């Protein structure tokens, strides 16, 4: 197949099947977003909890550290005998995949706040709730967000594989391309996933930068 032919085919695909393509992109984003959201809902509170004591921390990070080592494809495949196939199992598998980076960063962020800072806050008569919302949370936010960024980019990439167990999304394009030996579909799917990943990373990096404006490098430390 010539290059010219390939480009023509891609153009043709966008002309005739743009609805399918857009739906795949939307589905891919949806499943990634929902999985990242679930991972935040689980990972952030667990991270805050495990930052409180070293015993809880060893326990929680131990469990989720295991998910980190297992490759995402293996997690997805392991899910099939346990929870079957379809969108829901795919979501569960992706969420599990996204939890470790969020959990670990949240733990490090909260555990990394110096004790004397919290002690002065208490000494001034700030309540625990106030300390949490006005000191601990904002100070931890940039690191937590960095964890979310890692998780989101991981999920966007792995969601491609998840379509193998019925999640839908851009993975469908790629697997169809593989099945029918259609290079145009492979290219469209692959490049789209890469673009989504890069844009998510870019957006979250911008948010991260805004949050750490106060760390001014202009002044030398003493």
């Amino acid at each position, binding site marked *: 197949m010539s290059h010219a032919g390939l480009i023509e085919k891609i153009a043709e695909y966008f002309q005739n099947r743009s609805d399918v393509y857009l739906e795949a992109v939307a589905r891919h984003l949806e499943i990634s977003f929902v999985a990242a959201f679930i991972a935040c809902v689980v990972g952030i509170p667990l991270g805050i909890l495990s930052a409180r004591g070293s015993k809880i921390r060893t326990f929680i990070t131990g469990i989720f550290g295991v998910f980190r080592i297992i490759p995402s494809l293996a997690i997805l495949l392991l899910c099939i005998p346990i929870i079957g196939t379809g969108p829901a199992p795919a979501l569960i598998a992706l969420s599990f995949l996204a939890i470790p980076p969020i959990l670990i960063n949240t733990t490090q962020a909260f555990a990394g706040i*110096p004790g*004397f*800072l919290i*002690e002065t806050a208490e*000494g*001034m*008569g700030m309540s625990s709730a106030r300390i949490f919302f006005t000191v601990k949370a*904002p100070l931890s936010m940039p690191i937590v967000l960095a964890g979310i960024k890692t998780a989101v980019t991981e999920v966007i990439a792995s969601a491609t594989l998840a379509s193998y167990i019925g999640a839908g999304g851009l993975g469908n394009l790629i697997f169809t391309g593989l099945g029918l030996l259609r290079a145009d579909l492979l290219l469209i799917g692959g490049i789209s996933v890469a673009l989504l990943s890069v844009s998510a990373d870019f957006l979250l990096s911008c948010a991260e930068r805004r949050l750490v404006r*106060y*760390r001014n490098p202009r002044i030398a430390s003493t």
Partner: protein
Amino acid sequence: MIALSFENAVKRFPGATTNAVDHVSLDIEEGELVTILGASGSGKTTLLKMVNRLIEPDEGTIRLFGEDIKDRDPVKLRHGIGYVIQQIGLFPHMTVRENIATVPKILKWDKARIDARADELLALVNLDPAEFRGRYPAQLSGGQQQRVGLARALAADPAVMLMDEPFGAIDAINRSNLQAELLSIHGKHKKTYLFVTHDVGEALKLGGKVLVMDRGRVKQFDAPQRIVDDPADDFVRELLDSASGLRERRRGMNVGIL
């Protein structure tokens, strides 16, 4: 009037074989600046933290203007007690103004009052309000940070100030400026101060009264001149000697360098 009184206060930490604070009884007059002197581990910080209930005594009573602090809500009690520590503990994500506004905000002052108070306090600690109120702690030198820490502690006009080696990490020139400013602030407002230090010179210079502690006990509680002229025992005498010895050595070193 007695601002603060300790009656047989004892604190023993779990697992410790001795009391960190051991049957301390003393009365501190309102408006007094008391410096607390003692070796590392002698219980100075523990004594201080019992006043704002960061540490609860195992025995004894601590009264603030006659009222047992055990009967007060710790959070509310602390709004009336300024607290400054060596590590300063400014919130890095808040500007100087926001840091100073910490307690006034809890007390729900309106914005205009907070702004006015922040500027007033910055001027009091010799920082130009226009230049400094919008800065973040990372944009301040150590000495400037501790000035802001002091301003923050003074914000809601507390009756008592607790200062735990506030100038310990600050260079000699800045430290002596800060000492002078602290004396002038104390002179203006006459609040009750408890000021912990390792430095005998600092304790004698700042203290209206000096409290010498050793292994949790009070060795002497007296005016600085009386401490120098009439040390209670060998421990206090040695403490003073060690300081003057240090001064000699410093002088010698300076000559060597120059």
